[in-house]
């Protein structure tokens, strides 16, 4: 798995590509934790390049979501491939994360939440 990272204004965009399983989940957790610890106003996770996610991957996302909430940084997900979306649905995680179809939409929504001082939808 590789993780591409970029900044759009004060919003961090992380794009993991490949597979998130027990072998790769810790590395993603570190990248998410690192991003949340930096001075960003929102975090968007673009999952368009994700081929596989196991329970270990879901756990990392839940941990990051809790960290994001405690530090007041909205965490939004976007561009879930059909297969990954199906797994989120089966696991009942669609309600736990704000999920968008498009990356631009996710960045705008996450930034708007921060600007309005509100909380992001969902929560662990």
């Amino acid at each position, binding site marked *: 798995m590789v993780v591409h990272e970029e900044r759009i204004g004060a919003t961090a965009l992380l794009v993991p590509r490949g597979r998130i399983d*027990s072998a790769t989940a810790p590395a993603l957790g570190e990248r998410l934790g690192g991003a949340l610890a930096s001075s960003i106003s929102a975090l968007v996770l673009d999952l368009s390049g994700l081929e*596989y996610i196991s*329970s270990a991957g879901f756990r990392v996302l839940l941990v990051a979501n809790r960290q994001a909430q405690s530090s007041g940084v909205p965490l939004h997900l976007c561009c879930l491939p059909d297969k990954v979306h199906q797994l989120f649905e*089966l*696991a009942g995680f669609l309600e736990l994360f704000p999920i968008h179809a498009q990356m631009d939409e996710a960045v705008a929504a996450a930034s708007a939440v921060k600007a309005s001082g509100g909380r992001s939808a969902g929560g*662990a």
Partner: protein
Amino acid sequence: MSVPAHASWWGPADSPPTALVLLSALQHIVAATTLLTYPLLVAQAAGASPATTASFISLTLLAAGAGTLLQAFRLGPVGSGYLCWPTATVLYLLPSLVAARIGGLPLVLGMTLAAALFEIALAPTMRRLRPLFPPEIAGVIVLLVGITSGAIGVRMIASAPPHSGPEAALSPIAVASFALVVMTALNVWTTGVWRIACVLAGTLAGILVSAHIGGDGGPSWPAFAGASDGPLFALPDVSHLGWSFDATLLIPFAIGGLAAAIKTSGSVVILQSACDPRWVRADMRSVGGGVLADGLSTGLSAAIGGLGLNASSVAAGLAAATGMHSRRVAVAIAMVCVLLGLFPAIGLFLTRMPAELLGATLVFSSVYLIVNGVQIVTSRMLDARRTFVVGLGLLAGLSVELVPAMVEALSPSLRTMFGTPLVFGTLTALGLNLVFRIGATRSGAFVVEPQQRDSEWIEARVNGLGAGWGARRDVIERVGFGIAQAAEVLFDNAEVDGPIDVRASFDEFNVVIRMAWQGPPLELPDRRPSAEEIIASDEGARRLAGFLLGRIADRVSCHERSGRSILTLRFDH
């Protein structure tokens, strides 16, 4: 093929407005003029009088009307349940022409009756033949029907004679192109009556534009001028009724019956998949009923004095393209057939429909058939064996079309068999499928070692098995996830440190996975642990994995015996 998500899709049991039903029926009839032209050719070959020729056509029409109802309404084992109506077919045309020249119409009727009995005898075996008709072969059949009917359409357009007189400025290709544009535009951008009747509207537009360019205020084709030839109303004369047999013709007619059964199977599969967005495999009961109805239609036609019939693949394509599958249309088609049988002048008008407009109709309906065939083929995973079955089957069928000299070198009886791309391609695919069954297994096993727990490696193994089975791609993806997820949680969260034996079996309806390891069983909770529980401990993560396994598989169980645990995952297929 997915069911269009708009209001102009009508299922077999739906009751669309009467006007829509009549328009659809008329559209089907316009696209099926072989019902009139083929009996005409055979009667002429037999040297029949004009009155007998007219009766031969009328009786074929009446049998087609009855056959339409037999197909659409399932009566016990008879009928496919779909708008799969029969028309005169090239499969019986070639042997019938030979029979007509040798022994006149009685020999045509007798041999057609024999072919019908052969097809009827084949029908009950269709369910047992299911292993021979895996979905990729159904896809090849549908693809061949689509490609060849499209090619025939293009050829009809390209070879249509130019119209005489000053109107000749508008070539048949231009007329057909205009009609095709109208059909396609109405199909893509409209709903309701315009979409349902797009072929009829396109055909009429083609006639009108040509007439307008011609500037004579009416249809410009000379053929239309004679449309009022013949009597307006006439009861069919059955004086030609009689049946004789010739053993030398038995093989070509039996092959015609076999080919008719294969082609009917293809048409029924087209309609099954067009009517059900969740279609995954052929319903062989419906296919068998369709073949039985097809044989009975031909038998009835031969019994009352008409030509052999076969479920029209063009009609199946038309229904798929327009989304009109209502059985009420079958009733209307049957009524129109009876009407045409009793009013020869109307039928005569239809036989003079310009070839380029019939070609445009064929091209239009072939588009949906081609896409439908591709979708059926690609719905399954294909290993090397299945790749050759599909590729060589298609190529064999297309060779008949592309290299006609190959067919011309054959004897007349073999030419009847191999002379059509559909039959040759299908028989090639069926033969290869039989050969490749040698050594093919429906089960598999592998071991996941703790140091080789990579989910990608596991999925690759499962994909290899799925391709060998010709399993559905979506189901195999779930199987791969299930095994990888189970292995991950066993090694990471359940303190399993020995190998996991994985055994997989497949029987077309189920994929069953059994994973066995030395250690405690895996908990499979019905309720997902909360986010807090998952984050807080390994126990939460283990329960999440168990919950996911229960959701990804259709049935799951885990038990322990003598310290060895077995996890069983069952997936519906």
